[in-house]
């Protein structure tokens, strides 16, 4: 050993630091001195003094330096320097730091290695953020996934939830609507609740802000996103943990690093022609109306009508003067998207700080709609002295939404553009709006959508202040006490003014102008006290956390409406002849004690236990407190002495967890019943009256989830490849569910703890990263398979049926998945009266309507739900995400694919767009409809002669939703060479929502108009755009 070590080591060091050599000649001399002195001074244990540097050469604080084969280690100091004792027979150090690739360095006593850390993708040695703390990834025994934000750095992001798309298994982030700035719909490990919400809990810098992240958090400020999925990770959030937790950490300066960073991107949004629904044009619609008229006479009167009988409006379709494509008319093509950020980071000295300012603006693809957000942030932390650390984060933001007057749903603006009369113009000949579309010769009357977008004013503003502060005191070497306070203030205003010029549905203008004004102020604070103890005793590592938290939220609102305006010019309440006003206030509180013990033995055995006892004001008096325990264990098999050394395998860990979490997402005061005003008139004067508003349930308590999670983590090829597979089984019981009750009770439902739902699933995630010479390549793939099943709803009546006879049902039944699509099964189209006579009785059926399945074999197709069956499964067999990226010299690229396979969508908009009675415009495909026994069309579309037996909830509207998005493609070019003006410059281009590969006929297979337990209903929503952006990122 002694013979070759002194020779080998300097080589190694020289290799690592060769680019340094030119800077200084001091080092080689220094090395020689140190080498000689150390060999003389130390025999058995020898000290190594080293320096850890980041890519820019600055000292890197907090890097972990371990002697290979031992659990003992030290951290680098503020300047990046460290001293470590080197026991005999050891020859290398392992240096790790969050966000950097792990380095292995051969050393010998007395050497002074300099380690240059390279930025890397997350690897096993990273530290991951967990509830109320952080943990080395290799020690994690729960299911915690970290979003790789480097993969989405070029993506045009208007809402932070976009960052969750396709990145980790078990997390489904769907863009249900294209509303500017809109939040995605996020679910973690399936829908866990039938009655309470199923959204995850969002925690920003340790502060649980609720089940929505809102619109104001600037995505550019986010450093890290961790997703907690299993019980041992989420139980520390107790009554809010059962739908998973999204932990967001905002940026701060890296120690020793100071920079000014400016990012600016700009782009345009459009709707690809392939994602526009094709409707009949004006002449075709007139022809359609004429056909309907004549076909009816042919069928009902059994004669050939003469042309003179046809109403003049559509007697000569070819003479139709105008045709308007209403959908096209509402689009704001090439709608700009822009995002600008400036970030100043100062990482030198005891305190480091980050100041950032951002501006985002997304104009909507619908004319006149937009989202913009101004955000400023100051994050400061550092050491007051050797034992006190303090930090403060302050984020102020102000966002504005300009909204359209209802975009989601069948009768709303987007859906209505498909079905309104295409023979009407947008403008009259004099240039004024043609304000009433349809409403003549039997077509449905709508407001002019272009006029609505222009003249209806709806704006929503959110002013927000989010702040956290903490003081942490270290004492008795191993203890730390942290007290933290967080506050969230939100001031929201909403104003809507509908002028008298806007038509209603089947109601020509003028209307009574209407204004609605709402303001709400939210004050949410939490105070946390955390005591941690961590120590290593030889092979034992222990980390203990005990904490107490209290959180309170108060919302106060004021709402006023005005009507009867003398004109449309002063849209303010003061001008309204009639006004109404109301105020509201609600509040909730929660307090909890919690604790966690993490224990590791010899880098092999890992144990973790957490417990939380929580009280919530939302629950009945007798069941106000709940206990949430969880345990987990891990085994790093590879470190066992009996394991043969497998060269390529870096780590192999088996882990499992069990625990109980809760869900209190039910709204406030739901266990109580209140009187509600129901006034009367006596003596021709107002007489105040009160009635009971709902049934109380003092036993209303927690919804509980028991979750088991088993996982395996593998790292191989020097961490180039990591792979995780997990199985989970989550049973949610005592669900907070409105139980339908016979209305003789005075009510139709009351809230109780009943029912059980099970979600079982497997998740796979793999990451690979390699570099061959100047070509770097990385990939990240994940697949999630989730099955949900209802185990119990309530005693006697085991189903929940939501929806309507003419617009699709969702049924939740015991033994089946939540919210299956439900309706008649179409067997075909009746071609002749003879077929109708021979089939089970369908009262009022005529040739050309659907023949339905007589499910209950009663001989009659009853005109209610008795013959309905499950007609589709809205839950994908699996969902997946795949990101691939690479770089070559100064170029880099990344591609994100994501999708879902094997599920159904009920395209309910077709009950309007294929409503054959001529009231609405219809799909181009309607030309393939049934016309007569000899001209039955393509067998899919019913006759125009009746409305009965063709518009009911049935299989005709069910389509496969399987799809793959080429969600994003980005390419970039980095000018790394330092320059007098900037340290680096990066230019990039990004295409979001680039392609959609699907057979689904609607524009967006992620659409979910009803949501929750009524999934898979497509009634049209704000359309999604393809966004092309270009950006530049300067670092000064």
């Amino acid at each position, binding site marked *: 050993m002694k013979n070759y070590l002194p020779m080998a080591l300097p080589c190694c060091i020289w290799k690592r630091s060769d680019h340094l050599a030119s800077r200084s000649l001091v080092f080689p001399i220094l090395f020689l001195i140190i080498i000689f002195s150390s060999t003389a001074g130390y025999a058995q244990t020898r000290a190594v003094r080293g320096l850890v540097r980041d890519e820019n050469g600055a000292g890197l604080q907090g890097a972990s330096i371990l002697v290979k084969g031992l659990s003992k280690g030290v951290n680098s100091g503020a300047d990046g320097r460290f001293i470590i004792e080197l026991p005999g027979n050891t020859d290398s150090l392992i240096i790790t730091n969050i966000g950097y690739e792990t380095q292995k360095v051969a050393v010998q006593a007395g050497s002074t290695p300099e380690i240059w850390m390279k930025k890397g993708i997350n690897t096993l040695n990273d530290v991951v953020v967990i509830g109320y703390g952080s943990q080395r990834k290799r020690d994690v025994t729960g299911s915690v996934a970290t979003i790789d934000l480097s993969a989405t750095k070029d993506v045009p992001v208007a809402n932070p939830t976009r960052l969750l798309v396709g990145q980790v298994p078990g997390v489904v982030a769907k863009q249900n609507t294209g509303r500017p700035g809109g939040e995605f719909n996020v679910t973690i490990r399936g829908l866990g609740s039938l009655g309470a919400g199923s959204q995850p809990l969002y925690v920003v810098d340790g502060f649980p802000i609720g089940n929505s992240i809102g619109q104001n958090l600037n995505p550019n400020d986010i450093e890290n996103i961790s997703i907690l999925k299993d019980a041992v990770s989420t139980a520390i959030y107790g009554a809010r943990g059962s739908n998973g937790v999204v932990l967001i950490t905002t940026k701060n300066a890296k120690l020793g690093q100071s920079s000014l960073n400016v990012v600016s991107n700009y782009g345009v949004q459009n709707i690809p022609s392939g994602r526009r629904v094709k409707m009949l044009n004006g002449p075709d619609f007139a022809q359609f109306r004429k056909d309907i008229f004549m076909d009816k006479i042919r069928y009902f009167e059994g004669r050939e009508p003469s042309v003179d009988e046809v109403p003049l409006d559509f007697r000569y379709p070819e003479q139709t003067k105008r045709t308007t494509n209403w959908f096209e008319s509402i689009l704001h093509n090439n709608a700009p998207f822009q995002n600008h950020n400036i970030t100043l980071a100062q990482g030198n000295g005891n305190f480091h700080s980050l100041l950032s300012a951002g501006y985002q603006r997304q104009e909507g693809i619908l004319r006149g709609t937009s989202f913009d957000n101004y955000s400023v942030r100051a994050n400061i932390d550092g050491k*007051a002295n050797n034992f006190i650390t*303090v930090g403060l984060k302050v984020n102020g933001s102000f966002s504005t939404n300009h909204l359209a007057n209802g975009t989601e749903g069948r009768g709303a603006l987007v859906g209505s553009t498909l079905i309104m009369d295409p023979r009407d113009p947008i403008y009259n000949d004099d240039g004024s709006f043609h304000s009433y579309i349809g409403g*003549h010769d039997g077509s449905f009357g709508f407001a002019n959508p272009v006029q609505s977008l222009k003249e209806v004013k709806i704006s929503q503003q959110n002013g927000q202040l989010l702040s956290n502060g903490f003081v942490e005191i270290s004492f008795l070497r191993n203890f730390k006490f942290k*007290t933290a306070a967080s506050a969230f203030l939100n001031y929201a205003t909403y104003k809507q003014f509908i002028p008298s010029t806007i038509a209603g549905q089947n109601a020509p203008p003028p209307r009574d102008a209407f204004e609605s004004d709402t303001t709400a102020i939210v004050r949410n604070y939490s105070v946390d006290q955390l005591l941690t103890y961590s120590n290593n005793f030889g092979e034992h590592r222990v980390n203990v956390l005990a904490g107490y938290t209290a959180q309170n939220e108060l919302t106060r609102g004021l709402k006023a409406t005005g*009507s009867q305006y003398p004109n449309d010019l002063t849209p303010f309440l003061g001008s309204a002849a009639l006004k109404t006003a109301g105020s509201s206030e609600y509040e909730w509180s929660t307090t909890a004690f919690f604790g966690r013990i993490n224990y590791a033995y010899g880098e092999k055995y890992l144990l973790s236990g957490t417990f939380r006892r929580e009280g919530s004001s939302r629950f009945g008096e007798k069941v106000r407190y709940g206990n949430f325990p969880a345990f987990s264990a891990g085994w790093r098999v590879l470190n066992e002495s009996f394991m043969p050394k497998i060269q390529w395998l870096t780590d192999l860990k088996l882990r499992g967890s069990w625990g109980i979490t809760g869900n209190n997402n039910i709204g406030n005061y739901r266990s109580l019943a*209140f009187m509600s005003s129901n006034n009367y008139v*006596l*003596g021709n004067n107002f007489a105040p009256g*009160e009635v009971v508003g709902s049934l109380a349930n003092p036993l209303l308590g927690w919804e509980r989830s028991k979750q088991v999670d088993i996982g395996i983590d593998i790292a191989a090829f020097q961490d180039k490849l990591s792979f995780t597979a997990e199985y989970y089984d989550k049973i949610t019981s005592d669900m907070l569910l409105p139980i339908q009750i016979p209305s003789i009770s005075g009510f*139709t439902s009351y809230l109780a703890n009943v029912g059980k739902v099970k979600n079982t699933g497997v998740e796979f995630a793999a990451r690979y990263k390699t570099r061959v010479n100047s070509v770097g390549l990385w990939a990240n793939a994940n697949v999630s398979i989730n099955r949900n099943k209802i185990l119990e709803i309530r005693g006697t009546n085991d189903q929940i049926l939501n929806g309507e006879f003419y617009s699709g049902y969702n049924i939740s039944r015991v033994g089946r998945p939540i919210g299956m699509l439900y309706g008649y099964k179409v067997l075909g189209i009746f071609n002749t009266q003879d077929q109708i006579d021979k089939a089970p009785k369908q009262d009022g059926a005529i040739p050309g309507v659907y023949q339905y399945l007589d499910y209950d074999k009663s001989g009659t197709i009853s005109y209610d739900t008795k013959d309905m069956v499950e007609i589709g499964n809205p839950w994908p067999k699996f969902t997946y995400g795949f990101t691939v990226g690479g770089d070559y010299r100064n170029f880099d690229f990344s591609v994100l694919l994501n999708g879902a396979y094997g599920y159904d969508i009920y395209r309910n908009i077709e009950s309007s767009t294929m409503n054959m009675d001529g009231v609405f415009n219809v799909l181009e495909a309607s030309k393939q409809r049934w016309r007569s026994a000899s001209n039955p069309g393509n067998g899919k579309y019913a006759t125009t002669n009746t409305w009965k037996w063709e518009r009911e909830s049935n299989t005709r509207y069910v389509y496969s939703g399987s799809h793959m998005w080429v969600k994003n493609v980005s390419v970039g070019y980095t000018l790394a060479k330092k320059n007098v003006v900037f340290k680096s410059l990066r230019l990039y281009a990004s295409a979001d929502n680039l392609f959609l590969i699907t057979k689904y006929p609607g524009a967006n297979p992620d659409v979910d108009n009803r949501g929750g337990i009524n999934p898979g209903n497509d009634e049209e929503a704000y359309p999604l755009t393809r966004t092309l952006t270009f950006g530049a990122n300067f670092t000064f």
Partner: protein
Amino acid sequence: MKSIIKLSLLLLVLLPVACKKSYLEKSDPTGINTDLFYKDQKQVDQAVNGAYGTLQGIAGNQWLFNELPTDNTTIDFNPGDRGQAPRLESFEYFTWNSGTPNINDMYIAHYNAIYNVNNTLLRMQKAVLADSLRPGYEGELKFMRAYLYFELVQYFGDVILITKPLDLPADAWTYLRESQDKVYTQIINDLKDAAAGLPAQYPAAGKGRATKGAALSLLGKVYLTRKQYPECVAALDQVLTLGYNLVTDYADAFDPAKKNGPESVFEIQYKGEDETGEWSSFIYTFAPRLSKGAVTGWPQSNPGGWNIPTNDLIAAYEAGDKRKAAAVGLDFKSPITGDVVPYIKKYAHTHATYGRTDDNWPVLRYADVLLMLAEAINEQGAPTGEAYGYLNSVRNRAGLGDVSGLTQQSFRDTIAHERRVELAFENWRWFDLKRTMTPAQLTAFLNNYAAKEKASPTVSRQGVPYSNTDYIFQDFKYVYPLPSAEILLNTKLTQNKDY
């Protein structure tokens, strides 16, 4: 920096504050917990008012079940909106079924109102309340309960009878439909109690509450429906002594400026020009669809075009009947077809605020009492002078001459006719038809009317043919179906035959 440390020390001090038990006791500051209500006279009074308030919603939709399916009214057909075909229009075309949402809504509204009556009756027993006030409040509540059950039993036949709030939610599944006899027994007992407990009249501030006269008039109507004619006459004879009179001008009975007049026995109260939401808006439902402001007086209106008087009814008014002009408007022409679209004028009064009318809804009028009395007397044998007197007083007020020399049957027919025109659009037609006809007779009668209406619709359908299922009345439609939702929920509940 020191300030941050000070702040954190402050937070440490705040910690115990958050530990207080009350931190987790939150109640809605905007509402009164039901457990804390019904404690004193003021609260009992408000609970009774709340029960009256539930009648407003019920009265506002009754035309759908009581006028639209009959020969009195039809619809202003909208070829551009077929969405109401399975809903409101189904009552015109006899195509309702157990899934028709309006039936479900009506059923729920009735039992919700009954719940509030039952709950108040129970909870007021422990209220601090002078004993002298109890019979009055109880009488009002029992009158309302009788009125609600009387409607239910006529709509559905056998119905669930519930007279106290449930102890446990699960008990809701133990209640099944009771025979009509049992329901009527409850109605009659409630009305007897009400008649005994209620005052004949209230001071001005109490106008609108149920009176002894209201209870007795309703009791008379119940007996008439049950064909218990002597009991009917006995009840109604008492009403004669309570000081009611026919107003001189028929139109005054519906004039908001003359609310609760001498002819009014019971009406649902509304108040226009009021910021508290107690206004009515019947005319906005009833005015022709394209009439904008022509009937309502407000050009921003888009009226519903529902409950349109039929040509059949308009023709039923005798020449010189003053009631026709007061009840039916014939001055609006459709801008599309140029045809007159008739509308109900009884509830069309000028009002100072768009959308907020001051019209009350008449439930029981003295004219109704007189006609019932005449009918009950005639049914016991033959028309007597007394019976003629009541009938002719109603006719004379309408500007029509006396009738005389009728047989029992022709007197019966005359009464039926007189009731139709006198009480048109006051939601009695369906019950009157049912009271005076067997299911088979009603079927023949309505199909005969439907054939006429179909051949020559009151309002043009603009070329849209009828559906092949429209206007087919069948015996089983004599009662409405129980809502399918209720049967799905409680499978032990039986549906009416053939639904």
